[in-house]
């Protein structure tokens, strides 16, 4: 049942193609701004817990095509569950940039009032969630899909993991259960080649995780090339199937981790590191759309300016928001908001 999507399909309107680029530019602008603040205040002595943005930071640069291509099919009524590397999916799914930024900066105005941090984003408005634990975001996504199915809606859940997570039990239990109950889920594997420092060839018994779909009797597809239009097309099939009540699909996308696993990762394990910047999907797509005459001169710069403004405003909102009061550290364990 595995299908290879090698070439970019046609059928997308020019406006849709330009919109995909625009989404990717916004995501990149956001992460570049986070990157600057993250590192700037950790100099001269690098301390992971210090600065405006404390803690680990997993940026998704290079993986924007996955988010843009898939989320273009979704509305805020659909659920998206991401991994510890969640920003691209959060933004493409329409999360409020201010509240996202504020959570990353650990502010009271953040999605989780500073309790979650960048790996633990929960947004009731866009049914977005993520998990810092490999593959363990899949099972709750089943439950969201279950609720959508039970209520007779055509809403769906999209559950995303990395290729390293596809060797976890939660991944396999979830595929089996969703297939068995025909839950409206699109399972997505972002294969960026590296489970931190371990390459896919050292972790995974099959060449493509899409092959594993056959073990659960569901369609599996692998998209090569980190091509946003190919991803859009493959995701379209899976989303349509889920919305029609025909059950889950598994979509693996061969994508690119442009930067380290986390900020501060020197990536000494990565032999192809020197060539990585050349594989950046955003300039490539911009050039392709320009060459085809779809993107008029100056449009991309306009998108960058517009993204810069939106991101600047979001970061300003975050940085000018209050930090949570230490007296309130015990709140929100239970719904009363009172300490135990």
């Amino acid at each position, binding site marked *: 049942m595995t299908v290879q999507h090698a070439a970019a399909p046609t059928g997308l309107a020019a406006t849709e193609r330009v919109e995909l680029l625009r989404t990717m530019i916004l995501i990149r602008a956001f992460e570049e701004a986070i990157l600057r603040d993250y590192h700037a205040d950790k100099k001269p002595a690098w301390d992971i817990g210090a600065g405006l943005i404390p803690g680990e930071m997993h940026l998704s640069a290079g993986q924007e095509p996955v988010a843009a291509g898939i989320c273009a099919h979704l509305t805020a009524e659909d659920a998206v569950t991401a991994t510890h590397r969640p920003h691209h999916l959060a933004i493409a799914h329409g999360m409020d940039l201010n509240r996202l930024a504020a959570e990353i900066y650990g502010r009271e105005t953040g999605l989780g009032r500073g*309790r979650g941090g960048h790996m633990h984003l929960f947004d009731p408005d866009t049914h977005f969630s993520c998990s810092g634990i490999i593959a363990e975001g899949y099972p709750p996504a089943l439950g969201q899909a279950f609720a959508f199915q039970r209520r007779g809606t055509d809403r769906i859940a999209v559950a995303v993991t990395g290729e390293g997570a596809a060797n976890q039990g939660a991944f396999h*239990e*979830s595929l089996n259960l969703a297939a068995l109950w025909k839950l409206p889920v699109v399972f997505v594997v972002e294969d960026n080649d590296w489970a931190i420092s371990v390459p896919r060839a050292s972790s995974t018994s099959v060449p493509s995780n899409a092959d594993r779909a056959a073990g659960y009797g569901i369609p599996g597809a692998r998209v090569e090339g980190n091509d946003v239009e190919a991803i859009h097309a493959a995701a379209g099939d899976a989303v349509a199937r889920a919305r029609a009540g025909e059950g889950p699909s598994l979509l693996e996308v061969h994508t690119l981790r442009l930067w380290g696993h986390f900020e501060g990762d020197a990536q000494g394990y990565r032999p192809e590191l020197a060539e990585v910047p050349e594989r950046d999907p955003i300039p490539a797509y911009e050039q392709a759309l320009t060459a085809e005459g779809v993107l008029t001169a100056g449009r991309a710069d306009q998108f960058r300016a517009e993204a810069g403004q939106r991101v600047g405003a979001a970061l300003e909102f975050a940085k000018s928001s209050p930090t949570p009061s230490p007296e309130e550290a015990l709140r929100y364990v*239970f719904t009363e908001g009172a300490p135990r």
Partner: protein
Amino acid sequence: MSITAENPAAAGAPAPSSVPVEPEAGTRRLNTAKALQEAIASQMEANPEVFVMGEDVGVYGGIFSSTTGLLDKFGPQRVIDTPISETAFIGLGIGAAVEGMRPIVELMFVDFFGVCMDQIYNHMAKIHFESGGNVKVPMVLMTATGGGYSDGAQHSQSLWGTFAHLPGMKVVVPSTPYDAKGLMTAAILSDDPVVYMFHKGVMGLPWMAKNKRSIGAVPEQDYVVPIGKAKVAREGTDVSIVTLSLSVHHSLDVAEKLAGEGISVEVLDLRSVVPLDREAIAATAAKTGRVIVVDEDYQSFGLSGEIAATLAENPSSRGAAFSRVCVPDVPIPYARDLEYAVLPTPARIEAAVRAAVAG
């Protein structure tokens, strides 16, 4: 996702304030399993968002009869047998709860938590906090605990201390049919994740040795036993036994026996481990001056140590004599003689009471 301000899914359920809290027990007698089933059935009738899910909860009716009869009443759309995939189906419950449904998910034996603990403590327990209170997880995780029938080290543990140690879940442990119904009703109505731990030995099952207290009076109407409130199961003046679950029955048996010798034992049934009714613990300690904790969970780093700390931290109970009857830090053995050597049996409890009043 359900948000904190409003939860339309809960609208069908009776508001706790409209429910008579702790009515008279009446005369109708049920075993604990039936009382539990009745609470679930009543809440399922009241609210279509309540459903039950787990291994063998359907036709079989739950390995320990927690769901007997529910399939006939509500059908397979609401009483759902799952594959043996605890991670997947417990996680499914979490996601459904996040979207405003009210799942009751059974983990057949608490001993199986190892195969699905990430979903329980990293997801079910933490999402509300991580979301800054914006997302609720109104879910009940129901599970069987306890030993006493030679089921060995992987099917006989109590482990409530393990769950209580990890913040974000309420942990309730009924001992009587009355409390089993009222606490399950409270758990289903709660907007927090609740771990509902029933001891196999209190269920009143026909295929296990039964304590007479596993069958008792249960009102037909709905009622709530508040989560976090202990109950003085027997008043006394010489020594306090602070305990829960099957050990409550044993302690009451011992107290009845020793009353004939003029030893007056107070028995405090904790009913909830999280929140823990620390005031009630301190009050009974202040009253008798002697506390024995009887706990079928492991002795070290668990509930009994937490109660000792509670006594030490509260000025009114500080200085109370303290001892404990717990499972020593050893896996539960299989052979009957070995198993009963480590369980908190009536004989061990009696010896502890005699030692306490002699000291």
